[in-house]
């Protein structure tokens, strides 16, 4: 219950007591400890910088050859050595964002139920089972998707959306329903990121002080009003942190998406149409890419994925920051 929320700047107390600096250097043990932790802390950014450098260096021939066109072109033709990543960038962003839109309400529902409504005996097992979703290998999700999820999508969900709801007239739900589609990939991603969002949100909600709840109840709030007006706003930035974690996971997910998205180099407005992601194209083609430019183009996809992740994360962090700044209700 006292665990600090992982991504909640306003909850974590970071300012060290003033007199700590005066104790510095008094003991060798402290010095060693300090150096050790500093080393660990520095190692990660250095590692990231090295990886970035290596990827960009390997991708350089492709960037030099295609320039900005690599980001805007939709042609991917290894035979003629023409490479453009636009459909993959589109597919990566759209499938991840769509997954987030599907997963967040469910994850929040699970988290709110477990922290506010669930009886004690139910809380642990349900939490455990939801968290266990995160431990299932990606390829198992992919297989399950092929044999269970896609047939349901193709035979039930897609006809329902297109015909029964009449959404087939909009460009977003038009075209033939193969099953293998952006929607299929987004659904599997939604299931895969749900445990991350719900686990973080649950912890953050549980960390909301009892006094906050009691104050709301004392004001005459119903349970629903208490959750809406006192608990969720308090936990808002932490919940957003969980959502960011889920998004990062969705952007980089490879195997399950590759198995379900249909792997087609095409930007289509329809969610029923197959698409492609940056991670998928690398997984698909890297093993047999002998040609230098082909390898470079795949490395360039890796570099672009890094940048996309960075940009999306930056936007999300800015969102957390701006939300955290708002006064609490």
């Amino acid at each position, binding site marked *: 219950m006292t665990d600090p929320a992982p991504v909640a700047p306003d909850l974590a107390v970071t300012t060290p007591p003033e007199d700590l600096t005066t104790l510095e250097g008094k003991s060798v043990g402290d010095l060693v400890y300090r150096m050790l932790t500093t080393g660990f802390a520095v190692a990660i950014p250095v590692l990231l910088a090295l990886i970035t450098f290596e990827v960009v260096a390997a991708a350089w021939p492709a960037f030099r050859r295609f320039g900005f066109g690599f980001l805007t072109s939709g042609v991917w033709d*290894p035979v003629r050595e023409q490479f453009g990543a636009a459909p993959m960038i589109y597919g990566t962003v759209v499938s991840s964002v769509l997954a987030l839109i599907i997963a967040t309400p469910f994850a929040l529902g699970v988290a709110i139920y477990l922290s506010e409504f669930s009886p004690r005996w139910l809380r642990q097992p349900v939490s455990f089972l939801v968290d266990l979703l*995160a431990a299932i290998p990606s390829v198992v999700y992919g297989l399950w998707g092929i044999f269970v999820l896609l047939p349901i999508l193709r035979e039930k969900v897609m006809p329902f959306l297109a015909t029964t709801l009449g959404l087939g007239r909009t460009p977003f739900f038009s075209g033939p329903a*193969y*099953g293998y589609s952006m929607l299929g990939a987004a659904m599997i991603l939604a299931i895969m990121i749900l445990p991350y969002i719900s*686990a973080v949100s649950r912890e953050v909600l549980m960390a909301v002080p009892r006094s906050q709840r009691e104050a709301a109840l004392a004001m005459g709030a119903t349970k629903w009003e208490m959750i809406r007006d006192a608990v969720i706003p308090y936990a808002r930035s932490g919940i957003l942190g969980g959502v960011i974690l889920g998004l990062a996971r969705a952007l980089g997910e490879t195997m399950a998406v590759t198995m379900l998205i249909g792997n*087609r180099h095409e930007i289509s407005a329809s969610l029923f149409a197959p698409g492609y992601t940056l991670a998928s194209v690398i997984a698909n083609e890297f*093993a047999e890419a002998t040609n230098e430019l082909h390898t470079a183009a795949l490395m360039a996809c890796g570099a672009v994925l890094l940048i996309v992740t960075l940009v999306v994360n930056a936007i999300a962090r800015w969102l957390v920051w701006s939300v955290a700044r708002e006064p609490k209700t």
Partner: protein
Amino acid sequence: MRFFPIALALTVVAAACSGGGDSATSDSISTSGVDLTGAGATFPQPIYGKWFNDYAVAHGVRINYQSIGSGGGIKQLQEGIVDFGASDSPMTDAEIATAKHGAILHFPTVLGAVVITYNLPNVTTPLRLSGQEIADIFNGTIKKWNDARLAALNPSVKLPADDIIVVHRSDGSGTTYIFTDYLNAASTTWATTAGGPGRGKEVSWKVGLGGKGNEGVAGQVKQTPGSIGYVELAYAKQNGLPAAHVKNKAGEFVEPTIASITAAAEGVMATLGADADYRVSIVNGPGAGAYPISSLTWLLIYQTPPDAAKGKKIVDFMRWMYSTGQQSAASLDYAPLPAAMTQRLTDRLATITLTATR
């Protein structure tokens, strides 16, 4: 401690990873007796695995083969990391020129074939297809199953009025290379269409869905009524997938079988000179009863192996493979080479120089 389950999962993963590391180390200890290492194609991996195992039992020479893909095998051989490579598509002259230890020889080992499989629930007699029609289906020109040209090839079959859903490989693969190589040879339009897919391990498909690996394509075809795709013969046989009969150069519609694939190599064999380097394509080959989408797969060996002792071990293995080894190929759904070819290849092994240069 409500993060416990995730923490536990991470610990398990970490343990699994380090476990993998441990087993790798113990592997390298237990296989310190490895005599040869090779890397390359995944397609012949099952039969290579069987051969290397059988050979180790019979002759005590241990061969470690890593099926990392033809591309990776070629790269590692070029850099001299492995003693031999394996590939489903022949190396180009440019690729051979950049190899560290000089000329590389291609030795065919077995034959494989690509099978056209489809999902038409009401069609029970095998579909008949010819090269031009297959090309037009995979190019998106023929869009419906009841297209007049398909109906003309299958007069006794009632084809549905459904859309054809094309499924192709999304990963770079020798299977795609063989398939597009065939379409290049058997269709008048595949190669000439401006911006057409052309020939390669990974091409720019105009239509269809991409599946990763044979299992990906087969899975999509099985799941999607009205679909058509291509997988390698062994995979199709072991999974009981329907296989179209394909028209060969002699005008016959041929079922893909071990015999019809070996026949394809026999047909091409007749056209090879004594000094052939065996970097030949046997797709759409001549000869009666030849299945047209067949291909050789090769072991790649330096003409002058940098380590003569290892070179001798490879040559000894190859001799065994061309005699005893060939007999077990069919048991794993690979077609053995024709007898005349194994004879000539065995003779060709003598051209490998086994006097060490270092």
